[in-house]
């Protein structure tokens, strides 16, 4: 367990692994399409839950934003905030709801500064969760959906950068 905790503080290593996995899935896309997204999802669901569960305490929202949130799962935030911390953070950076826990966004921001590929993604505006995708494989959802469930006018890029 301590191993996974230490791993969480290696955001660069994690983002490289994440991007690598994403690239493999993109390569396999034609194959997955032929297999059927539904079937691929059933195959992927459990390994994804175990893998991301161990490292990120993944809640299987089905819409992974890890690389945009400092490789820290925003679903660990009791308010499920996807765009940054609430105003209730306690002194010392602890969570408003659970005072024994560090604010997910304090950790996410800190880690995002150490990332080299997707660190600025924390400034993107994340769309509301699609609840229908919960408990399904996020990698497969990404391939099948291609971000088609928000109005075209939903702005995500802000152009903001880390110093």
């Amino acid at each position, binding site marked *: 367990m301590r191993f996974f905790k230490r791993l969480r503080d290696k955001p660069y290593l994690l983002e490289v692994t994440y991007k690598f996995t994403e690239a493999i899935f993109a390569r396999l896309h034609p194959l997955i399409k032929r297999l059927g997204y539904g079937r691929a999802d059933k195959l992927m669901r459990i390994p994804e839950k175990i893998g991301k569960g161990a490292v990120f305490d993944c809640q299987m929202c089905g819409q992974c934003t890890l690389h945009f949130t400092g490789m820290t799962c925003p679903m660990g935030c009791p308010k499920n905030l996807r765009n*940054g911390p609430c105003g209730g953070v306690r002194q010392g950076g602890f969570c408003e709801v659970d005072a024994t826990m560090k604010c997910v966004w304090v950790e996410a921001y800190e880690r995002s500064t150490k990332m080299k590929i997707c660190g600025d993604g*924390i400034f993107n505006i994340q769309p*509301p969760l699609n609840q229908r995708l919960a408990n399904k494989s996020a990698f497969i959802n990404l391939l099948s959906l291609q971000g088609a469930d928000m109005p075209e006018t939903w702005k995500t890029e802000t152009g903001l950068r880390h110093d």
Partner: protein
Amino acid sequence: MTENRTSGRFEAALRSGKFVITAEVTPPDSANPQDVLAAASKLGKFADALNVTDGSGANCHISSVAACTILSQAGYEVIFQMSCRDRNRIAMQGELLGAGALGLHNVLCLTGDDVTVGDHPQAKRVFDLDSTQLIQTARIMRDDGIFLSGRKISSPPKFFLGGADNPFVEPFDFRPLRLAKKIEAGAEFFQTQYCFDVERLRAHMKKVRDLGLHEKSFILIGVGPLRSEKTAEYMRTKVPGVYIRDEIVERLRKTPTEGKRVEGKRICVEIIQQVVEIEGVAGIHVMAHKQEDAAVEIIEEIQALKVSKKL
């Protein structure tokens, strides 16, 4: 920041460059409209706009949209506060349309205090949207005339959109950037949490100015009186997101009982005097739950002192 989106007095006052004062009203636990009017009567005379809270502190009160309507019909300029805690996106978009139809143009979009701090800790927390997403949703409804589903709105609402800012809690470096994110989403004004640490605010505002955010939005700083060191202690331990420096609590503790109320007011006036000097501050937001009299005296005092030329 030149276009006047609404016919509201609040937006007009901000755009005129005047130093704006807003004040917070907690809607009563009553179905009698007279009680809503009574809650606003003291501060209403002095404020450019009244913020009507939405289940503040996760406690149940008369709904914000209803209280806003009652006050607006009585001639007050109101800011409708909407929290993400209690409704999903269907209810929120419906209520935004309703607010538009009722002539409530100023909307402050908030995350909301968690249910655990309020009077119904057993309740389900919703947070279907977060505050940034709510701002962007309201902007899309206004500018594109559609719901998030893409369905058309026959007559889109006119909104002047606001967000919250808390420069006084971590992650400090992210806070100004989060403001920038909210501006990109559509926020045009901000109201902050209580300021009891001017140094921290100065550092925050410097970053805000470096990013040019003070030119893209109006920032109002939250202030309010402390009745005693006990109130201060309660607020900083029980009210989410409130930070009060030890020196302030100590100052109140050393003051004899009969002088505490006056000292609390003096601290507030001193903070306001420093806040108005900070470049990029468009006004103050007075929060004085159950201390409306003290708040009125504070506003009268800063007006008499002419703390700002624009006041």
